Every structure is written in structure tokens, then in C-alpha cells.
């Protein structure tokens, strides 16, 4: 049991929910306001990578991750206002994979917003995904917060349209995280123009929360922990008092603060990834602020995977990571320091050996 965080304890005060939630790997996000009646929460599930072996048979491990996250999200009490699925529902963008994943996601008892991942996109450029989930980028308002979904996994037209003889090969080339034939992610001018217009009608004191698959910041290009035009998107978020970007893709806990913009990554339900700093042949820029999650123990199949719930308060985000085989963690915006901080481990003295990655 790890219920040291009061906010989380309050949130999960319903009978039995604490015991359940302490084993939950959901990303639950709380947005809290000065007037606490405005606070609300949403849940975040991401990177399921549903993978077909052949003939309608799927990789059991990845299936179990998504099934568990959906089941546990449904047990949250009080209920989150909505759920975001952060992209990479499929492994190779196949209709069979998207259908199988969508069937599992459909069991969520909440309104669900979906983000495009590169594994959903590069087979048919998001055509079938759109039949299931609609637009690739969009926005909405909820309880005084402006939410935006971006498709941040686009890349250069030459790579997308001219480089590969078949769509299947294009998908495979982008699916390999460390494949040097891949191409950097980007939001692209068309979406940036749309975002500029979309944000023009939003007041600067309105909290803005952006969901993207890739980080809208530059951490490590070799694994596309990266968005090529991140600065252009950040510039559009500059005028806002409270801006937050929540992204998937990296399969690990990351957080950062760049000027007024707070960044949080979410965990995957499928498998964890190493921190790029552990790749000895490359330099990565993992935000110094980030206290890494514990090194994954492969003998625990779901270790270092999960989901999260998010509190929204004062337009700022508190991210509650429900870790299956470790103590749960909370990373919340600290108004005193102006940055997101871990509730337990932020001080260098407070860190533990399993958080050392090499």
C-alpha cells in the first residue's frame, strides 16, 4: 500500500478503492482550481501496442496490459470525467489490431478521447483509425479548461509518400524505435496554423492542456523522443498562464518545465522503455527535473507498465502513476517553485537505488 499522498487518498476514499488503486497502473490526472469545486480528474491510458501474431491471434502480454488498465479505470471512484487514450493502440496499424484494441477500449465506461500514434498511422496514414475515432486533431472545453489533441507523429512528405515501395514497409520502418531508417516526428505547418486559430479564441488565463503522442520537446532524436517542430508549438502556448503537455510514446515517467509549459509523459500498458541516457553511444537530454521510475524487472510481466489518473486543480495537473509492482507515484505542479515535482522522490536525498539507470 502506498497512499501517502493526501490528494490521492481523498480521491480514492471510497471503500475498497484504495486497496484496488494501489495496484492500478492508470495515469489519473487531476486538474485542481483555487475554487476546489472546480477540480476534476481524468484518466490516461496509452501505448497498448496490440499486436497480431497471425489469423486473429494476438500477443497475450500486450492484450493483458490494456485489459487490466481498462478494467481498473472502470473501478475508479469517484469516476474520472473522461479518459484519454494516448496513441499506439496497434503495433503495425492493421485493421485487425485496431479493431481488437478498440473492442477492449470500448469497455471503458467513460467518454474516451483518442490520440494518434505512429503505430496507428503509418500503414494507411490514419484512414482506418479515423473510421473508429474521427479527426486526427481537435479541441474541446471542459470545466474551464481548453483541451487540444494534436497528431504529432507526422514527418517529411518525402519520407511518407516517396521513400518506401509499400505501405507495409513504411509502417515497419517507422515501427522500429531504434531504426535508423525512421524519420523525426513533427506536427506540421497545417496543424500549427489550425492550432494558432484554435487558440486565438482562448483567453490567456484559461488553462490549456495539450495531448500529443510524441513529446512536444526534444529529448532524444534517435528514438523519436522528439518533435522536430516542438518550438513552434511551444511558441503558440507561450501566451497562456497555465499550459500543460501530456504525451505518450516514451513508455516511462518523464516530466519537465519549459517557461510556462509543464510536460508530463505517461506510461505504456504494453512494455517499458529504457531511459535514452542508458544508450551508451548517444547523448540524450532527459529533463534534469525528471526522477526516473524504478528500473523494470522483466520477471514481473506488468512491472513498469501502467496507467494514470490526473487531478486538475488551479488549471494545473497532478499526475498519479499507478504502478503495478512498485509504490505509486505522484508528480504535481508546485506553485512555489513553478515546476512539476515528485511528492516523495524529488530531492536528490530522497531518491532510491532502483531509480538509478545505467
Amino acid at each position: 500500500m502506498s497512499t501517502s499522498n493526501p490528494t490521492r487518498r481523498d480521491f480514492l476514499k471510497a471503500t475498497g478503492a484504495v486497496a484496488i488503486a494501489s495496484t492500478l497502473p492508470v495515469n489519473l490526472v487531476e486538474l485542481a482550481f483555487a475554487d476546489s469545486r472546480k477540480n476534476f480528474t481524468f484518466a490516461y491510458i496509452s501505448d497498448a501496442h496490440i499486436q497480431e501474431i497471425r489469423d486473429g491471434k494476438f500477443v497475450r502480454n500486450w492484450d493483458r496490459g490494456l485489459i487490466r488498465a481498462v478494467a481498473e479505470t472502470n473501478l475508479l471512484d469517484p469516476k474520472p470525467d473522461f479518459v484519454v487514450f494516448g496513441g499506439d493502440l496497434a503495433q503495425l496499424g492493421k485493421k485487425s489490431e485496431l479493431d481488437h484494441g478498440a473492442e477492449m477500449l470500448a469497455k471503458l465506461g467513460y467518454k474516451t478521447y483518442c490520440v494518434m500514434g505512429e503505430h496507428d498511422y503509418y500503414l494507411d496514414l490514419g484512414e482506418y483509425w479515423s473510421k473508429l475515432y474521427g479527426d486526427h486533431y481537435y479541441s474541446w472545453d471542459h470545466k474551464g479548461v481548453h483541451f487540444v489533441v494534436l497528431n504529432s507523429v507526422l514527418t517529411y512528405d518525402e519520407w511518407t509518400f516517396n521513400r518506401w515501395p509499400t505501405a507495409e514497409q513504411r509502417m515497419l520502418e517507422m515501427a522500429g524505435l531504434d531504426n535508423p531508417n525512421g524519420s523525426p516526428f513533427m506536427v506540421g505547418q497545417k496543424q500549427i496554423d489550425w492550432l494558432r486559430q484554435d487558440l486565438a479564441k482562448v483567453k490567456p488565463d484559461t488553462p490549456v492542456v495539450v495531448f500529443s503522442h510524441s513529446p512536444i520537446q526534444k529529448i532524444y532524436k534517435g528514438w523519436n523522443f522528439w518533435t522536430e517542430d516542438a518550438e513552434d508549438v511551444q511558441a503558440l502556448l507561450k501566451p497562456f498562464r497555465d499550459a500543460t503537455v501530456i504525451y505518450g510514446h516514451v513508455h516511462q515517467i518523464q516530466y519537465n518545465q519549459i517557461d510556462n509549459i509543464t510536460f508530463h509523459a505517461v506510461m505504456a500498458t504494453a512494455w517499458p522503455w529504457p531511459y535514452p541516457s542508458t544508450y551508451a553511444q548517444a547523448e540524450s537530454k532527459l529533463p534534469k527535473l525528471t526522477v526516473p521510475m524504478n528500473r523494470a524487472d522483466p520477471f514481473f510481466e506488468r512491472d513498469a507498465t501502467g496507467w494514470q489518473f490526473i487531478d486538475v486543480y488551479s488549471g494545473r495537473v497532478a499526475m498519479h502513476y499507478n504502478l503495478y509492482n512498485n509504490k505509486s507515484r505522484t508528480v504535481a505542479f508546485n506553485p512555489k517553485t513553478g515546476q512539476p515535482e515528485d511528492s516523495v522522490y524529488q530531492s536528490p536525498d530522497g531518491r532510491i537505488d532502483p531509480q538509478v539507470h545505467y
Partner: protein
Amino acid sequence: MTKRIGVAALAVAALALGVIGLSARADEFTKADLERWEKEYMTVVQKGRELWVSADLGTNGVACAQCHPNGANTHPETYPKFQQQLGRVVALREMINWCLQNPLEGEPLPLDDPRMVAMESYLAWERRGVEMAPGKH
């Protein structure tokens, strides 16, 4: 008498060894040799990389690189080490076999299988420059 013959035989044997040693030049090699040996190694490293991203080692289409991009988080410099989950000291190739059997749902390779050597070669190459840390968890 016997003793004298013995000494003589030893002397002849020593001379013969010396001659062989000179002709074999065990400690002499050329730049071309070095290049060839490096090439031989890198060919195996390349095979290891191909296996690392291959869906064919297991039965469920999962590849090693899915969880270990560029071989990261495999820590070849720490092996052999006490693998606490197995309760004994193991070599890296035993952990590779564990992954083949579990996340990849496949069969283990013989420990001297050329494919196993290739994967170890690839992991060591990706980890080059990192200090040896045997036994480190």
C-alpha cells in the same frame, strides 16, 4: 646412458620448438590482419543486430528490440552476475534465453549457438566504451 639420451632428446625438442616458433611468428600480425579480424567481428555484430530486430526468434512476433532499443538495458558489462530473480550467478546468454522463452514465447538457443554469439556480440558493440562492472545489479 639413458639419462644422456634423454637430455639430448630434450635439447632436440627444444630446438625444434624454437624453429617452429620462429616460422609461425605467433606475435606478429599486419594491419591487413587487424582489418580482417575487425571485419569478421563486425559481420557477426551485424548478424546479431538482424536477430535483435527479428520476429523469427520467438513464436509471437515480438522482437528483442521492442523492449531493448539499441540493446539498452541489457547491461552486458555486468555479467556474469548474481541474477537475483534466478537465485544464482548467470551469464548474459542465459538471460537472453530467458527473454526468448518468456516475452518472445519461444525456445532457448544452445548456449554456443552462433546466433547466441551474434546477439552477445551486438550487445557488447552497442555497449562499447562502458567500464566493466562484473556482478553489478
